[in-house]
Structures are given as C-alpha cells and as structure tokens.
C-alpha cells in the first residue's frame, strides 16, 4: 500500500470517526438515559457525567413485572429456534455439499426462491390455522416460524463450510466401518464447528429481536421482550422514558456484546450465504 498524503489520511480518519458516532450515539444515549433521573433525561446538552441511579430499573421491576417473564420467553424462543435451525441445516447442508441429483438441485433452487417472499403474508392463512390448532401464544410456534425463515440461509452456510472439508477424512472413517451418522457426528461436524457457529448467529440475532410475528401470534404466555417494549412505547398515558430505556438496555446489551464478539463469523457467514449462487 502506497503512503497517503497527510491531509487525505486526516480526512479519512475524520469520516470514519463520524460514521462511528452515527452508529454509537443513539445506543449510548439510551443506555446513559436509563441511568438518569426522569427530569435529567431531556436535559440539553445530554450530560455525560452524572450520578447514576438505578431507580428506572427498580421501577421497571415493580411496575412492569411482565417484562422479565417476556425476556425469559425471548430466551426460550431464541434458544429453541437456534437449536432447531442448526440441527436441520447441518443435516441438509451436508447432503447439498456431498451429493447431487436433479431433485436436490430443484429443491436447492426452491430454497432460494422462498427466501424472496415477504414473511408478513404467511400470517394471514396461519392466523386461523394456529388458533384452530391451539398453537396461538406458544413458544413452539415462534420457534418453528423463526427457524423456517432461516433454514435456507443456514443450510447454504453449512454447505459452503462442509464443501471445504476433504472427503478423504470421511473415507478413513468409512474404512473403519463408521455409519453415516457416526461420520457426521465424529468427523464432519467437529471440523465444521465454525460453520455451525456462523449458521447459528443469524437466526439467533433475528429471534432475539423479531417483532411482527411475535406481535401477531403472542398475547401473554409467549410474549417476547420486543413486543412489550413496543407496548411501553405506545402507552396512551404518556411514555415513561426512564423505564422504557431500562427495559431496552436490558434487552440490547447481551445481544450487542454477542454481535461484537462474533463479528468475524458474521462476515464469514454473510460471504458464504449470500454470494455463492
């Protein structure tokens, strides 16, 4: 790389700094405001140094006890959807990586096509069916829906990662008399661990944050955190900003830390999942 003149470099760093502020300031404002007294929340300019208070969090605990139950629902649904997606996508991804037939190719193309359809439309026919099956307001329904919308991306990611594993590794196991299941569990999947992680990340983030399906299909028992945060924002008697920020901060911090930790896998997964046919 050739050396850039100092003013070019200064402009570049300046622009990158602006981009960082644009990303970070809204998030920081919310987290900081969740630690402020109600009357300090709308101070201008927003103070960066203040005596933090946990009043908003205490008030969230007493006034919105449902929030913590909903957070638990989010955790259950996210775990379930991620496990289900990884399980079925690993199995399918292996076959797509190792075998070929016209039927397989057709089904692979079908997977790409259904990714183009707008998810909201399936709520229309599912709504009555779900009521009839008494699946309304259950964890299992959200788990199935979230997994469905990510199995094709995850299968594609698994396929890309498994393709890179030399078949010779499996041949050695075949000679030792290993069955298909044993080969998968002992040879392929341990080597494809990175792929599994990449395939899991996207559905995990999506399930933790999803809003529309949860809004339509849950009312109480399976209601997730984003839905109740939406309700707090929509209360008629005026928004209680401090409490709302406390809830939003609790919901966003774990997933934010997670995304920062897995950023490399995120890039790898995006490249494997959306570039190749």
């Amino acid at each position, binding site marked *: *790389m*050739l050396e850039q003149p100092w003013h070019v470099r200064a402009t570049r760093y300046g*622009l*990158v700094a602006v*981009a960082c502020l*644009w*990303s970070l300031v*809204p998030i920081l*404002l*919310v987290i900081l*405001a969740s630690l402020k007294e109600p009357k300090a929340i*709308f101070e*201008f300019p*927003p103070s960066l140094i203040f005596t933090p208070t946990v009043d908003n969090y205490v008030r969230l605990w007493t006034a919105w006890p449902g929030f913590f139950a909903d957070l638990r629902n989010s955790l259950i649904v996210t775990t379930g959807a991620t496990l289900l997606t990884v399980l*079925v996508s690993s*199995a*399918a991804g292996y*076959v797509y990586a*190792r*075998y*070929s037939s016209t039927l397989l190719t057709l*089904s692979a193309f079908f997977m790409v*096509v*259904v990714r*183009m*359809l*707008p998810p*909201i*439309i*399936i*709520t*229309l*026919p*599912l*709504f009555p069916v779900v009521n009839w099956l008494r699946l309304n307001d259950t964890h299992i329904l959200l788990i*199935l829906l979230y997994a*469905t919308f990510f199995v*094709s991306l995850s299968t594609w990611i698994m396929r890309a990662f498994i393709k890179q594993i030399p*078949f010779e590794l499996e041949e050695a196991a075949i000679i030792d008399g290993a069955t298909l299941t044993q080969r998968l569990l002992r040879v392929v999947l341990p080597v494809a661990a990175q792929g599994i992680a990449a395939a899991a990340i996207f559905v995990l983030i999506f399930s933790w*944050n*999803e*809003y*529309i399906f949860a809004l339509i299909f849950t009312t109480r028992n399976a209601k997730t955190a*984003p839905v109740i945060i*939406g309700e707090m*924002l929509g209360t008629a008697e005026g928004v209680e900003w401090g409490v*709302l*920020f406390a809830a*939003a901060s609790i*919901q966003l911090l774990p997933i*934010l830390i*997670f*995304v*920062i930790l897995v*950023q490399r896998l*995120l*890039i790898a997964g*995006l*490249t494997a999942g959306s*570039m190749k046919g």
Partner: protein
Amino acid sequence: MGRIGLAHYAMVAPVQVLLLAFIFVPSLYVAWLSLHHSSYGQIPTFVGFANYAAITADPVFWRAFWNTFLVVNLVVYGELVLGLGLAVLMNGPVPGKRLIIAILIAPYAITEVTTVVMWRYMLTPDVGVINYALDSIGLGQITWWQSRFQALGVAAVLAIWQHLPFTFLILYASLMTVPTELREAARVDGATAWDEFRRILLPLVMPALLVALLFRYITAMRLFSEIWLLTGGGPARLTEVLAVYLYRQAFSYHDFGVASATGWMMLLLSLAIALPYLWHVYRQMFRHA
C-alpha cells in the same frame, strides 16, 4: 462419495418440510384467499378479482404503495452510497480496525423496536436532542408526528441506521478480495484515486453490489415496525406503507380477502425484482445437472 439414497433425502426433508408447511403452502393459500371474501367466523365466498379491484380503487392503497416506493428507494440507495463509501474508507490502513468495525455493525444487534425508541427519544417534540438543537439554531423542528414526508423521511433514516451494517459488511468483504498489487500497479501508472475507484474497485465489487442492492430491495419492501411504532400509519393513514396497510386490513378491519390480495401483490412485486437474480442462480445451478 457414493450414490445418493433415501437416507440422504431424509436428511434434507426437515428443512424442506418447514419451508413447504410454513411458507409455500400458506403463500398458495393466500392466493386462493385473495379471490374470496373472508372475515372472522364466515365461510369464504368466491368473489373473483373483486378484492384486487377494490384495492386498486382505494386511494389509501395507492398512497401506501407510493410511500413504500419512496422509502424503499431512499433506503436502498442511501445505504448503497454510504455503505460503499464506508467500505472504501475502511479498506485502507485504519488504526483499531477491529474495534471500529465492531462499532459500525452495532446497530445490527438492535431490535427494530428499540431503534424506534431511540429515534423517537431524540426527535421528541420541543425537547428531544435533535429537535431541540435544530430549533435553537433556527432551523425549526422535524415534525414527523404531523407531516407525511417528514415522517417517511425519519422512517427511512431509521431503516438506514439499522441496516447499513449489512450493506457495509457485504461490500467491505468483497473489497477485501481485490488484490493490493492491482491497485499499486494503477498508482504507479499514474492513476488518480478516482480512476482507481472507478476502473478497478467498482467493477470488481459490482457483483457484490448487485447482490446487496437486490437483497435490500426485497427486504426493505417489508418495512413495517419503523412506521407502525413511529406513526402507526397516521395521521389519517397518511404514512402507511404496504405492510402496514396489509396489517390494518387483516387485523383491524378483519378483511382477510383484501389483505390477501395486498399480500399477493407484495409477493409478485418481490419476485419480479428478484427475477434477474433467480434466473442467474437457476442457470448456475443447472449448468452441471
């Protein structure tokens, strides 16, 4: 590798069953439902294309259509320009690159609901940071709660803030594959930075750029929460987008036929946009078959 057998198809089956049961069959059912009059506790009655006729005669639908058109284009091209610019900036040597990328992709981790919370806080009438600052330097406020185009503009900014990480990452990943030698050779031949961008970087990232463009077109069309939680489609349904129009028809007015017709139109629109990509994928997949 052996021949493909029943066991292998069985391994593919769960994925395909999920897609068939929860996306494909429901989509077909929506097509059927769109030709019927349907509400709670009623047996659907066949009405032909009456629902489509009703929609195309409804000015609220057309307003939702044009609102969607406006926001989607603002979002997609805004993200493309910003994402590409950011990818080029980050492609050179930058101190603390890992940390900076972590900061840049942070919005990807935030739920749409909290995104709306953040921006509504900053844009609160009179006292939110942005509106207060704009007002005090004499520019007036952003009145998203009463002005149609300001509300749509805010929704677009929200969507860009939320999804820029996706566009940026795709373009950044593809820029990283451009060999440094190629760029250095161009420099030695006396190419300016602009020449280098236009003649070397841009053609090489074009495939990734087109994929990002198409995916964002299709996903941006689904825009719902940003409008729903910002304005609820109001005032007086002025700021509805297609997904909000569908939601209202179905879950406020219980008119499932009209909602289905809206949904099926969204589906066809998505497929039409995706057609060049799908054709490309199809040809690639069946080249060897």
